[in-house]
């Protein structure tokens, strides 16, 4: 049975939405070679989840869900900082951020 969290909008719809966004993010990660784009796709995935969190927190009428979004954001921020740092360093050394080039270590 559908759960309305907005007048006329059910939580299922939000799940749909974030699922789609999440999937798009995954697709991005898989289909691109540019580390930065991949990274942005990851951010997209996180946001999708955030959206879902908020939706659920509304459904449960519970603040914790929204609070959790803060943590997600801060984590995302931290990851961006570190990730971009790594990318920059990498770019300095190799003049590229193409992940398919970065597959020297294998087998």
């Amino acid at each position, binding site marked *: 049975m559908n759960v309305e969290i907005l007048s006329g909008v059910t939580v299922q719809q939000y799940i749909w939405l974030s699922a789609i966004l999440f999937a798009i993010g995954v697709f991005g990660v898989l289909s691109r070679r540019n580390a930065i784009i991949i990274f942005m796709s990851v951010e997209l995935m996180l946001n999708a989840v955030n959206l879902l969190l908020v939706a659920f927190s509304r459904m449960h009428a519970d603040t914790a869900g929204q609070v959790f979004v803060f943590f997600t954001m801060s984590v995302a921020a931290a990851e961006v900082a570190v990730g971009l740092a790594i990318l920059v360093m990498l770019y300095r050394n190799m003049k590229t951020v193409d992940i398919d080039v970065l597959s020297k270590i294998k*087998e």
Partner: protein
Amino acid sequence: MPSQNLYIAVLALPLIGFLVNALFGKKLPKSLVGAIASGVVLVPFIIILTTFFSLLNGAEAIHVNLLNWFTVGSYSVNFGLQLDQLSVIMVMLITGVGFLIHLYSISYMHDDENFSRYFSYLNLFVFFMLILVMSDNYLGMFIGWEGVGLASYLLIGFWFKNNDYNDAAKKAFIMNRVGDLGFLLGMFFIFYYTGSLEFSKVNEALGLGAMVPALTFIASLLLFIGATGKSAQIPLFTWLPDAMAGPTPVSALIHAATMVTAGIYMVFRSNLLFSLAPQTLEIIAIVGIATALYAAVVGLVQNDIKKVLAYSTVSQLGLMFLALGVGAYTTAFFHVLTHAFFKALLFLGSGSVIHAMGGDQDIRNMGGLRKYMPITFITFLIGSLAISGIPPFSGFFSKDEILAMAFQQNIVLWALGVAASMMTAFYMFRVVFLTFFGEFRGTKDQKHHLHESPLLMTLPLVVLAILATVGGFMGLPHVFHAPHLLNEFLAPIVVQVGEAHGHLDVNTEYMLMGAATLGAIISISIAYVMYISKAQVPGEDASYTGLSKAANKKFYVDELYNTVFVRPAQWVSEFLYKAVDKVLVDGIVNMTGKLSLITGDIMRSFQTGQTAFYILAMVLSVCFILGYFLIGIK
């Protein structure tokens, strides 16, 4: 009546002699070594002599219990000594003849660097031989049985620098081992079904019908296989001629007088078992006569004096088995004794000849030796007469008795027996004539130091010659209406099964005697014609043709055994090692290793190093699980 410890001494003395000579012999003076060695054989002889007389006066057989060897569950074996009529005679034979041969050896081996080793081995042999005949159970007998095998191995290979001799020794040992396996298995049957290995108990149990005929057949047959090994019967005889590689006195003691007769002793010991298995007896008779004939034929064309004697031994043993086969145990044993005398005599004689010839054993190089070594000649002649069965020499009586018994059983056996003994007479005198008559055919320097052997060697010859002459009188045929001493003495040992043999009527017996004697004389005279009148000398072995060539080559039995047993065994061994072990069995083991390495490569190939690939793999596996669950829930 000596106390028990004395009997232990009988056993212990030769052992002590062995140890002393083996450990300190090198340091002791040769005379002392010889003295010790012969002493430890003489003393037992004297001890047993007393026992013999006490037994003769109807005393009880002595039984000495030594120790419990093992007791496991219901199975128990004790070491015990048993001195009944049979073993006493055997002991006397061993120690008596043994002593003479020791004496002889002192001088014969005098120049050998390993003098002391030789005597230690000799004592060792005597020790084991005594165990063989004195022990009161099959296992003890087996111990002696294998022990003498070992001693004979050591003595055949005494001059171990020569690898042919080593091969001969090895051959003897292994062939005996084949027989021993038979003996062992036979023992298993006896042990299992009668619950004991002690002769007395076994006989008891057999008397109570512990083994059904089929079992007695198998068991006795297995024991007989053991006997064929030790007593050089078909098919396990080929080692004996080769065994002549050993010093001549050894051939005299071990390969003529004592060890090779162990087989007869064993059958005699277990005569009840054999009597219960008539089929076995038939087989024994056939094997015996076959061996006798075969060896005689081969003996006709041998030119190595010791080889001739060896084959004659084989054939004589064959006759003994013939006797056993017709159930005439005492007769066989009678021949054992006489044979021991004259064969030992002949060997020692030949030894003396070889000694004079400086080690040359080929009768074609001899001749006319009677001038140089009269005593040897006389004694050798006596021996030859005895073995040819010329009355009144001992061989005549024993052989005649055998033939008579064979006649009772089956005329064919008798005929073949006569044939064999005729051939014996022929080749023995062939040797005599070629060796002692005519002109010397050897080289100059051989001729130069031809000489009669020293006293220590001739004395035993003389003693043995006397024995060979009179030995027969211990078993006079009843036609002479004299008591058959041996039969009477040994009566307690033989357990009659069914009715005893009746005696032949007088005329038949005389006829048989006549025939045998006549045959012997005929063949002697043929030999005389050939080698004295025509003064023929056998040519090179190569010159033989046809049958005689085959005979000279022992009918290729050795070659046969090589191709049938030895080589295939080696091939199989190679095959098992190279193909089965290395390739198949080990291959499988190593294959598992290789396979896992290959698997490793396959697994590694998934580690592509591509981040995207890794992520995809993870995503897909998540999808997979989720899908799995949703399907599960639906």
